[in-house]
């Protein structure tokens, strides 16, 4: 399977959208631990016992935090500095793609995601490519 033995950490607050992404990724063999952006989430992510291959970040969280803040917090941890991260969001790609590029993320994938294309896009990012999909 395309994403066999991959550990993809999903930071997403909306349970329904979380289920969409997780279902597709698991279907293709990935292990998908999850976190929402609560205060404890960073500890939770750090406590995950296996090496993480990729972070998938939503952009909108309750309050003023955005996916970029999550990204910055993750990047501040030495163990996550080399782990790629991709934004998966329903936000306006015209606005967010330039932001995400500037921050150093590996890609932006628009919601609604395409259940056939999404695993291929994720695999491309895991192979070191960038994916900017509006």
């Amino acid at each position, binding site marked *: 399977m395309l994403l066999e033995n991959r550990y993809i950490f999903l930071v997403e607050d*909306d349970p*329904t*959208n979380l*289920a*969409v992404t997780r*279902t*597709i990724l698991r*279907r293709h063999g990935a292990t998908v631990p999850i976190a929402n952006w609560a205060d404890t989430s960073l500890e939770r992510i750090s406590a995950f016992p296996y090496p993480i291959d990729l972070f998938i970040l939503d952009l*909108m969280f309750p309050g003023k935090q955005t996916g970029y803040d999550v990204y910055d917090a993750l990047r501040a941890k030495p163990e996550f500095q080399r782990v790629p991260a991709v934004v998966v*969001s*329903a*936000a*306006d790609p*015209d*606005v967010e793609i330039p932001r995400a590029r500037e921050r150093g993320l590996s890609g932006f994938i*628009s*919601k*609604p*995601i395409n*259940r056939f294309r999404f695993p291929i896009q994720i695999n491309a990012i895991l192979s070191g490519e960038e994916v900017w999909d*509006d």
Partner: protein
Amino acid sequence: MPEEYDRHIEDLINRLKNDSHKPASKAQPREAVEATLSGDSRLSQLISISRRMAEMRSLTPLLSFAIDSVLPIVGAERGYIVLIKEDKTLDYRVKRHLDGTEIKSEVDPISHSVLNEVVTTQKGIVIRNAIMDPRFLGSQSVMAMQLRSIMCVPLITQNNLIGAIYVENRAKSGRFSEENLAPLEFFANQAAVSIENANLNENLEQLVAERTQELALAKEEAEAATRAKSSFLSKISHELRTPLNAIINFTGFVIDDYYGEVNREQKEALQRVIDSGNHLLSLINDLLDLNKIEAGVVTLDREPALLVELLDQAAEHTEALIRGKPITVERKYSPDLPLIWIDRRRVWQILLNIISNAVKYTKAGSITLQAQATEHEIEISVKDTGIGIATEDKAHVFEYFKQGVNTLDNVVSSGLGLAIAKQLVELHQGEIWFQSEVNLGTTFFIRLPRDSRPKVNSGSETN
């Protein structure tokens, strides 16, 4: 004797009044009038004051100058200029002592009875000793302030009473006589014209300032509204796309038998849910796009692109859209088309919108992609053998939410695709047009400059 003098002055006043309106007086030149007056230094003084006043454009300095000038001439110790405001109330604009200082505000600085008399009769009045004057016996203000010598004349211009000049001497009675009234009236007439002019001038300036400010404000508001609309639509778009993610994908999971086997009929029904979801999605995207283009926030991100690549992709996409209809896709373009500078994503969007229309309105036949290049331009066309556009619809093809009368069953369209295509073509400084005949088909043409980048100064191509 006083009567004769009055007539003489009135004559002069009339001439001078005419003179102030029409510089080249047909009756008597100004010099002649002045010569007549030269014997009376008071009047010549008044004339030179009048001239100064006529040059003054601002009301407050004009009024101060007027009262300061007139007090010594008529021998008064205090003077007031009262203007009648639009709401008919009185505005005590200037209150001055002979030495030019302001009279500190008093509750009731002048006699209302006297003022009322002047305002009502519109005639000047001289009072030798107010407290003894039978006309003002009942006046409280006269008694309370122990008023004595008073002169008051109306300010009249073009038959309109605009106020009054009131001068007084409280200490002594008998300071003013009828002889003093004529020069003051003459002065008042000149002052009234100047006041009116200054008023008009100030009103005009104020009006211009107000309009300028209003316009600036309106512009700011319009821009703020555009930004607000843009950001509102952007938020709405996020809110609408989020549930679509679940609708489209969970329906897909059921179709893909994630939760157990589903029969063919069920799959077809579910596919319709997905198709409708995707249609709704493209509608949302189109609306957001169009709004951004209109708000002027879309900028082209031009890069060198191989047109052939783009056309090949477009042809493949057309084949995918046909979905079993008996339509062939013809590629009539040379593989050696030049490199062009375009916003690849936007030109792709233009092509998609045209192609999806061609597929929608064609039942059978062919869709032909053509392209050619000239020295500075490229021309792309998409020709179909579809139902064509009715003559009465041709003028509205690029308008929003317009779908022609000539249509097929089950065509779903946002009615925005061609409007967006046109806007994007124009952003590239290109042109879009079409030819169509009912039942024969439609051809859309796009002409784009090979390089529509904004021109920079030549000679700086060092790197």
